[in-house]
C-alpha cells in the first residue's frame, strides 16, 4: 500500500469552458486558472468595456448554523451585521447569505495573500462546535468589469442592479442566466466591478453565457493577469 500525499493541482469548475480558448494557464492557490487570453492590450480594452474573469481559484470557506455568526466573531473575523450584506476586511470578503450562512472569500493581492485566515478556518471541526456546520464550497466565481456590465446584467438578471437600487454593501441571491447565483457590486483596484458566484457544476455554462453576451457588446474573456499584476506563470 502506498499513499500519495502530494496534493495535486485542482481544476477550475469552468475548465471545460476554457478548452476551446487555449488561454495561458497558471496555478493560483492550488488551482489551475486562465491568466491570459489574448494579451494585455486586448484584454485591457475588453476589461474597460465588458470583461469576464474566472476567479474560482480564490480561497473560500463556507459555514452556516445558528451559532455561525458568533463562532466567526470568536475567531476574530469581522462579519456583516445585516442579512444579505457583505464586508471586506484585510484581503477577504465575508458574505452573509441570508441570516445565518457565511461565505468567506480570499481576495488576491499583489504581494501577500491572506492564507492565515483560511488556515485557521480550515481547522474548524464541526464535531466540537454546536450549531455550526461547514458548507463545502466549489463555486464558479467571476469578476465582471467595464462600462457595459449593467447592459449585460439587464439581459441576464431580472433585478434592478443599478447603483440606485443595489446598496453598496448588499448582496443578492437571485437568478442569472436562469440559474441561482450570488451577485454584488464591489471596488477592485479603484474600479467598480460586479462579482458573481454560482454552483461550480454550472460554471462552464455560466462562463459561456457571460462570454456570449460580452462578445456581442464588445467585450470578452479577461485573464486573471489583467486584474492582478502579481499573477504570472
Amino acid at each position: 500500500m502506498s499513499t500519495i500525499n502530494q496534493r495535486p493541482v485542482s481544476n477550475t469548475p469552468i475548465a471545460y469552458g476554457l478548452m476551446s480558448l487555449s488561454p495561458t494557464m497558471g496555478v493560483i492557490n492550488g488551482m489551475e486558472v486562465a491568466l491570459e487570453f489574448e494579451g494585455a492590450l486586448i484584454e485591457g480594452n475588453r476589461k474597460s468595456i465588458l470583461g469576464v474573469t474566472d476567479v474560482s481559484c480564490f480561497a473560500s470557506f463556507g459555514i452556516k448554523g445558528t451559532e455561525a455568526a458568533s463562532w466567526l466573531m470568536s475567531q476574530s473575523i469581522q462579519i456583516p451585521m445585516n442579512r444579505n450584506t457583505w464586508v471586506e476586511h484585510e484581503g477577504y470578503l465575508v458574505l452573509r447569505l441570508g441570516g445565518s450562512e457565511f461565505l468567506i472569500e480570499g481576495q488576491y493581492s499583489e504581494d501577500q495573500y491572506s492564507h492565515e485566515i483560511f488556515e485557521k478556518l480550515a481547522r474548524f471541526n464541526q464535531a466540537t462546535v454546536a450549531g455550526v456546520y461547514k458548507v463545502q464550497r466549489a463555486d464558479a466565481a467571476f469578476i465582471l468589469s467595464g462600462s457595459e456590465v449593467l447592459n449585460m446584467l439587464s439581459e441576464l438578471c431580472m433585478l434592478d442592479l443599478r447603483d440606485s437600487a443595489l446598496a453598496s454593501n448588499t448582496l443578492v441571491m437571485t437568478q442569472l442566466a436562469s440559474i441561482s447565483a450570488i451577485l454584488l457590486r464591489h471596488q477592485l483596484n479603484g474600479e467598480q466591478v460586479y462579482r458573481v458566484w454560482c454552483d461550480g457544476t454550472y460554471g462552464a455554462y455560466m462562463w459561456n453565457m457571460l462570454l456570449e453576451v460580452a462578445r456581442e457588446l464588445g467585450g470578452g474573456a479577461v485573464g486573471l493577469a489583467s486584474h492582478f499584476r502579481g499573477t504570472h506563470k
Partner: protein
Amino acid sequence: MSYQNKDNMRLAKKIGEWIDRDKVIKFSFEGEDYTGYEGDTITSALWANGVKVLGRSFKYHRARGVLSLANHDVNILVTDGVDTNIRADVVTLQSGMTLKVVNTEGGVVNDKKKIIDSISALLPVGFYYKAFHSPAVLFPFWEKFIRKAAGLGVVNFNYPRITQRKLNAYCDVLVIGAGPSGLSAALMAASNGLEVILVDENQQLGGSLVYDRAGGNAAKEMLDELSVKMAETPNIKVYTGSYAAGYYADHMVPIVTAKGITKVRAKTVIAATGAFEQPPVFRHNDLPGVMLGSAAQRLIYRYGVKPFNTCVVVTANAHGYRVALDLLNAGCTVVALVDMRAEADRDQYVGELARKGVKIYSSYCVYEALPSKSKLGVRGVTICPFDEKNGTSNTANSITLDCDGIAMSAGWAPAAALLYQSGMGVRFDNDIQQFVPNSLPNGIFAAGKVNGVYNIKQRGLDGMRAAAAALQYLGKSVETINVDHHQGASPSHFYPIVMHPKGKNFVDFDEDIAVKDFINAAQEGFDNIELMKRFTTVGMGPSQGKHSNMNAIRILAKIRNLPVEKIGTTTARPFFHPTPFGHLGGRSFHAHRLTTIHMWHKAANAVFVDVGAWSRPAYYQKSGLSRIETLQQEAIAVRQSVGIIDGGTLGKIEVCGPDAGLFLERFYTGKYIDQKVGTTRYALMLDESGVIVDDGIASRLAEQLFYLTVSTSNAAAVYREMQRWLQIWQLNVGLVNVTGAYGLINIAGPKSRDVLAKLVDIELSEANFPIGSALETQILGFSARIIRVGFVANLAYEIHMPSAQALNAWKALMQSGVKEGIRPFGTDTQRLLRLELGHHMPGYDTDGLTIPYEVGAEHALAMDKPFFVGQRSLQIIAKKPRNKILVSFVLPLDYSSEMPQDCNLVIDDGVIKGRVTSVSYSPAAKCVIGLAYVHPTQNQLGATFEIRTDNGSLAKATIVKTPFFNAE
C-alpha cells in the same frame, strides 16, 4: 399593362415631415420599379408614386389601399421574398426592396381570386358551418380547397433563426404614448424628479400634433414647445418606433423595439395611448382611395404625400373639418364635406371651409362610393340626405359627385387594450360616445383621448393631471390638477352606419365582414358580443378589431335595442401589435451542469445523455462496436475486473446536528437513530400518499453527521422537501446541500479493492470494511469519503471528494487500475449492472403511483416507528388487495425471437396484467433478464407469464430469484 395611374402625388416639402428628400430609395413593387425617400413607409412611397391598389382582402380578395396608415392596414401585407406578412403601412422603406403582395393569384391587380367577391352572396358569414360536412366522406375533399384558401403570406422555411435581446428596465413612471397628453405627463413627472420611460409606436414624438393641423400651425407650435422641453429633460428615457405589447401583473410592460424587447417594471403606468379613428360604414367604404381622415393627414404631414387629387370628406365630428382644411392645404380639391349629423354645433371651421369654396352638406351621408370601371379605385360618390336618428337614407334625393377619393372621420375608439388588461372598469360616456375608465387599478392612470379628453388644450392638462396623480401615488406632494369634462359636440358619432340593400358596407376590413353579416348572426342567436365575435370572426384578424370592434358593438346594440354599455366589450388580449417569435423567445437559456470530469469523458468518446440539467456519459463509444456491444463489454469489465463511473451528479446532502437521526427517521422509512458511525443504511422516501419518491444511502460519518446520497434527478426536490419538513418539525438539525461541491466516483468489480487500495491508507479488507461501511480518509492529500456500496457489483466503492479534485482522483484511479484493465462505464451500463443484481430504480421501475409493497420493499419500512412521511397512508393501503407486484424474470437460454423491450405488456388471456420495466441481455447471466409487474396471483418462483413483444409475438418469461447470476 400598367393599371396604376402613377400620378406623382409627392407634395412640396412640409415642415416637420419625416422623410429625407436628399436620400432617394429605389425599390420595386409587384415587378415595377419605384423610388421613395428615406423615412417613407412602403405604403407612403407607393402612394407618392400614385400606386393605390396595395393589397387584396383576405376573404373576398377585394382591392384595398390605405385605410389607417397606423398599423392596422392588414390588407396591405407584402413579402420581400425573405420575410412575409410585412405591414406596408408602417414598415420603413429600405433600399432595394423587391416587394410582392401576399395571398394573390396572378398579382395584386389581376388577382384571379377576386372571383370570390362576385359570389360573396353565396358565402354569408358562418356559411362554412352549414356546408361541406354532408356527406361526411366528402369533407376531406372540400377541406383541401378550404385549406388552400386559408392564411395570408407564405412562410419562408429558410428564414434564419434570430434571437433578439430581451432586457429588463425599471422606472418610476412609464408613459405609453407620446402625443400631447403623454408628453405633458412625462415632462411633469420628470420635472418632479421621477425616472420616466416614454414609449411611442411612431418613429417620432408628437402623436396627432404631427399631422392634425387643420391647415394651420398651432399644433406644430405646441409640438415644438414640448420638444424643446423634452430635450432639456434628462430623466426621460424615450423609446420611439416601439410599442407597449401588453400589460402584465405588477406593472410589467414589455416594450417591443426593432432590436428586441425591453421588459419595463414600472412603479406607475400612465396610458396616454390615444384613440383609433373609426370608419363610417357605407357601401364600398373599402375601395382604394377611401381612407380615414387621420390617414390622409399622416400622408400629408409625415411623408409629404397628397392623398387625393379630388375628394369628398365624409364626417360626423369636428375632426372631419380639420381634415378638410389639411387637404386643402395640401392642394387637394375638396368637392364637398358631407356631415352625417343633423344639428351639431357648427364649429369654427365652417366659415373657413366655406370661404375656401367647400360645399358643406349637413344631414347627408355617403350612401355609396362608386367604383371605377376596373373596380380598383373611386370614381365618385353618391350622397343623400340622412336621418341620423333612424339611420335612414333618403335615396330619392341622392346626388352624385365625381372624385378620386374619400376621407372619413366619424369617430374614435379608445386604444385601451393595456388598460383593460390591467383590470380597468369602464363606463360609457354618452357625451363623447366612448367607453372611458371608470375605475383603474392602483398605480395605473389614463390620460388624453383614451381617457375621453379630446380638446387639445385639455389633453395636455390631462397628461399633467395623470402625472400629478402618479406623483401622489408615489408619495410626492403635488397639487391635484382638474380637467374639464368634454364640451360641445361628440367626437364620435353614435351610429355612423349607412345601410344599403346591396351590402358591401364593411365593418371589419381584415375579415370582410359587412353590416348584414351582423344582422344575420344576431338572427341566428349569436346576439352576445362574444358569440357574435366568434361566429362572424369580427376583430379576430391581425388588426384585432382596432377599426371594427366599436362599430360591431354599436350595430349589435341597435339590433338588440339596448344601450351600448349593455353590450359591453370583448376582452382585449395581448398583444397590442403582433410580435415576432424572435423577439418573444429572445436568447435561449439552456442551463446545463457538468461534473469536473466531463472533459475527460469527452476525450474518451463518451456518448452523453441528459439527466435533468446534467450531461452524463451513457457509455464510451468504441469504434466498430454497436451500442449494445459496448454496454456489454463495459459490463463484462466490471464483472471480471474493475470498472469506474462518474457519479458526481448524484445528490449529496449533509444532515447534521443533535436531531439528525430523528429527522431522518421521520423523513425516510427506515431507522437511523441507532445507526452506528461508520455504517450506511438504505433510505427510502415516500410522499404523504405512500408513493415511492426516491431512494438513496445514508452514511453516518459522525455522531452528528449523516451523509445522504440521493438520485440525480430528484436531488433538488429531495433537499427542498427536507428543508420544508425541517421547518415544520423544528428539530435541531442543519442541512447542507453539497451536490455540486462534492465529486463522486464509483469503482466496481472484483479488482476494485486492489485499485483503490493503492491510493488510500486504510484497510479495505472484507473484514475491516465490509459492505455498508463508510468513513472519511485522505486520498491524494485531500479528504475524501469512502463508502462500500453494492448497487452495481458486490465489491464496489464510492469515493466522494471536493469536486475541484474529482478529475485528479479519476485520473489517479485510472492510472492505478491500468494493470487491472480498469474501464470507464456509463449510465446505460450501470442500469444493466444493477439489473443483473436485481435492484430496481425509482423512476425507472416505479411510476408516480408505485407503493413499497409493489416492489418488495417491505424490509425498508419501519412501521413500528412513531411516524414517517407516508406511514399513515401505508397503513390504509396495507389493508387493500394488491393488483401488481414487481418480479424478476428470465427468458429461456435459447430465446431467439423478438426481443422484449421496456414497457412491453404482460398479457394473460388477452388482459393486461402488467408491464416490463427493465429488460436486457445479461452477459453475466448469459440470458435475457428483466423486471416486470405482474398480477400478484402470478407471482411464484418458477411460474411463467407472457410478454407481448413489439411484433405481437408472446415471449414466455419465468420468475426467478435475484441476483440473476452467481455473483460470488
